[in-house]
């Protein structure tokens, strides 16, 4: 078997100083194979976003190693990390986080402005990404002119346009109605199936988790990966 795309070794994450110490993740290990579709569940405040941020290398662990796409990201400098994220990470947020002053097209194009591409190549990539998410006809719309579901699909197009190694989605349907959520989930499923993208998706929603192939449950700083313990566990744990 090939090397896992994500390998987390003895990772701990502690917030706060001596007195207000909160250990959100304690000594976690995790491996995710290429092409996997993982649903990460757990009560609110259990550290799901924190774990996702560590994989995305927008945050650093207090201790342990995070190896993603063959790179120990804890060893990289800030500027190396920026370039690394650009190549390897596609991040999808709960609240879409599109840039309000840019159109759908320009939002998708944004990450590509960092690479040396001819404008024709760039255009082709943006158009493909918008086609995949089914929003070619909305490319000139600004985020405020789109529905939540459409905004999230633009955000997904932005995340996949650079053809990243890993797609990370933090409660991507958390703010959507059932129909929009369904279309976003089907889209993610298709990206995993058809384009063989490795996906890690945080979700509260058992129905959302159904689309994944593997389930992880985070609670009290520990990761439980026994599928039998998984849904419908999500949401049942105590807060904090």
């Amino acid at each position: 078997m090939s090397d896992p795309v994500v390998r987390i070794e003895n990772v701990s994450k502690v917030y706060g100083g001596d007195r207000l110490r909160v250990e959100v993740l304690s000594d976690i290990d995790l491996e995710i194979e290429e092409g996997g579709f993982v649903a990460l569940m757990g009560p609110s405040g259990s550290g799901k976003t924190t774990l996702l941020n560590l994989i995305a290398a927008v945050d650093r662990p207090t201790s342990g190693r995070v190896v993603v796409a063959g790179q120990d990201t804890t060893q990289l400098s800030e500027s190396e990390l920026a370039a690394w994220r650009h190549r390897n990470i596609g991040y999808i947020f709960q609240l879409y986080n599109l840039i309000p002053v840019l159109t759908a097209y320009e939002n998708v194009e944004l990450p590509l402005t960092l690479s040396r591409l001819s404008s024709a190549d760039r255009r082709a990539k943006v158009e493909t990404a918008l086609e995949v998410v089914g929003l070619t006809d909305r490319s000139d719309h600004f985020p405020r002119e789109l529905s939540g579901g459409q905004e999230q699909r633009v955000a997904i197009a932005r995340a996949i346009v650079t053809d990243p190694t890993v797609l990370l989605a933090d409660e991507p349907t958390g703010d959507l109605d059932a129909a929009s959520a369904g279309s976003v989930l089907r889209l993610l499923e298709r990206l995993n199936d058809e384009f063989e993208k490795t996906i890690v998706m945080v979700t509260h929603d058992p129905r959302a988790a159904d689309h994944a192939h593997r389930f992880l449950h985070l609670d009290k700083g520990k990761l439980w990966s026994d599928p039998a313990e998984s849904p419908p566990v999500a949401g049942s744990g105590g807060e904090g």
Partner: protein
Amino acid sequence: MRKLVWRNLLRNKRRTLFTVASLTMAVFLLCVLGALLQTFNPEETETSEKRVVVRHAVSLQFELPEAYWSRLETLEHVEAVSPLSWFGGIYKDTRPENFFAQFATDPETLLDVFQGMEIDPTTGEAWLAERRSFIAGRTLAEKHGWQVGDEIFLQGEIYPTDLSLVLRGTFTYPADESQENQIFFHHAYVEEALGNPGTVGTFWLRVDDLASVPLVIEAAEEMFENSEARVKAETEQAFAASFTEMLGNVELLFGAIGFAVVVSVFFITANTMAMAVRERLREISVLKTLGFGRRQILGGVTAESAVIGFLGGVLGVLFALLLVKAAARGLSGMFPLFSAMTLGPDVALLGLAAALGLGALSGFIPGYAMARRSIVEGLRKVG
């Protein structure tokens, strides 16, 4: 990224406009102050230094006896003396564009004192020969479309007489074209019209050498120490600057004003930019998640505020240019000094550079802080 910078500029148009406007104001003030300073401290030329002006010791409003003329001519080192009386009449109406300097003088000596003045000999003779005639600077004659033989009418304001004068020719003043905005006519003619009071506003003396200027000044003042009308003698520059003396140390004052303006506008722009950038903390974190580096974030914010600075600078310089032009045209009648007022390229460049620098720095400071903020913190920020 360029597109993003541009859109961010347009995102809050009122705020951008306000910031551009405050920078415009600052640059405008800086440029006008700079232009005034340059006007009050003109580069001194040798020929003008060699002239001494003699006027009433109390004030320019008082006249001197005509008899002083021949006595001044007897002073050592003085090569020529010519009377100049500011007539200050109204030509056509009181609109500024019809204002120009009008001097009653002596045609025979005027050119001996003002050697930079050029006039062709036949014109000179024709002027000399006709008491009612006048000569005009070429610039002024062209402005009003006067032809030789044309008659103009000046309504007396200072003196209780009107004048009707005939143009006999034009003069040029190659070394200083601002001198071409005046007319000269016969002192004797004005005297006659006034019933021969025998008075003169000022006497202008050409001195043989620069080194003799202080001696002549001293000798002239001494000469009339015990006369009915004591005189004040000064160099041409001192004479021109005498009305600015009331401002005290103009340079220091203007410098302080300029500095205060720059500092306060810097706080305004820096604060506005800081607000604009802080509001975008979450977006900046998103950009960083997408792979934008600190340098790109910082560059974007700095470019945005530099554009604001540049716009403010250009507008400020333009407005200053307009004002200076208007002042040069409108005020030169009352204060001939203003006719030389221009916005030097060095002053304009300084204003532009100040605006650009202020703008860029206003973005750089909050941009630097933002670029270093943790991504996670920015992403967690709601709104």
